[in-house]
């Protein structure tokens, strides 16, 4: 029970950073599978069932633009930040850094 609860809390914690992590990797155009690989290579594995629908939602909300391309393989839909998305990335990055610093201080206090 404790493990199940802690897993849920960990998922909740990760859910908060998924959008920022995704936006951070879309400064250059990427398709879904390549994006997931890029995130995993940097230590953040996101389930495919979460990531692919998220890309569509971010696009429908106006943060991303996308287009179909054929580059040495089957047709793939490439996603990238648009102007609004870049502004959002800057804003979320600032928020994240603020939160990160605050959490660092809080967790260090706990270590004492």
């Amino acid at each position, binding site marked *: 029970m404790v493990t199940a609860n802690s897993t849920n809390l960990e998922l909740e914690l990760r859910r908060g950073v998924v959008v920022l992590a995704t936006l951070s990797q879309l400064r250059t155009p990427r398709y879904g599978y390549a994006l997931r690989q890029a995130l995993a290579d940097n230590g953040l594995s996101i389930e*495919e*069932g979460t990531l692919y629908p998220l890309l569509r939602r971010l696009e429908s909300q106006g943060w991303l633009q996308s287009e179909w391309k054929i580059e040495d393989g089957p047709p793939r839909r490439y996603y990238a930040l648009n102007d609004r998305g870049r502004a959002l990335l800057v804003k979320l990055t600032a928020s994240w850094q603020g939160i990160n610093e605050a959490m660092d201080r809080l967790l260090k206090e706990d270590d004492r």
Partner: protein
Amino acid sequence: MNANDVIEAYVHDVARQLPRRQRNDVAFELRALLHEELQARADEAGQAAEADMAIALVRDFGQPDDVAARYRPAFTIIDPVDGQRFLRATVIGLAVIWVLGLLTCLCQPLDSGSAVLRMLGQWWSGTVMSSLWWPGLLVIGFGGAAWARRRWPQGHAWTPRNNDRIPGGRTAMVMVVISIFCGIGVLIDPRWILDMALHGRAAPAAYDALTYTDTFRHRQGPCLLTALLLNLPLMCAVIVQGRWTPRLRQLELALGLVTCALMLWAALDGTVFVGEASDRTVKFMLVLLTVISLGSFGMRWYRGLRPTPAPRTHALH
């Protein structure tokens, strides 16, 4: 079924739940991504992509319903904040409707097993099934409230208010006083309603039906009239004070409990009206009024904040 068939079936189940304008596009993309994921798993395992591997992949991806929901913007009819209240109102409302329906059905003569079964069947079809209007009405009400909150968030901002305020203000209390006067008039002589409504042209049977029995006129009637009269100075005091003070609330509770006891006494002991049908109806109304009043007092007590928190048994370390 091979791996390709598994992915096709999965994509179909997801896509058919999506809006038509994005269905084909999402299906095309999802199919390509799943094939790519499957190929990566097959390469990692060092074997060809098989149906079992494809099934494991799509199961990891999620139930088609869940995945389709993730593609769509979140849509809620009843806000999570209203979930508990909606559930409570549904359960209480249905319980009241079902119990009242059952009581009504129990008024029929039940002289055999088949009569009981017939009564239960009648209760099921006439009360239980038709009571589904209540949750439907609540969905519309709560859904409308949620929509209004999202549409005009400023209008729903929290504002401080006194807990001892009069709901509806002094105007509402004046209306209550007028209602009490009407209640006193009805209690003194209910036939007054017939004169008011039909200007004395009501059938004699109607006057007979609303004639009090001597027992009620001499026993419960005067007590109920006294209780009703005592409400007048209480309401006037609330109007003068402009709020419900703790003392006035205590008086209201005491008077309410006494009135409930008197109404139960009138409903359970003896007859109220000479007419049998009108007697049965008024007793039903008295019991219903008592249940609602007691429920209201109980709810107020249950929801009220205690002046001090419950004592802790463990100290914080």
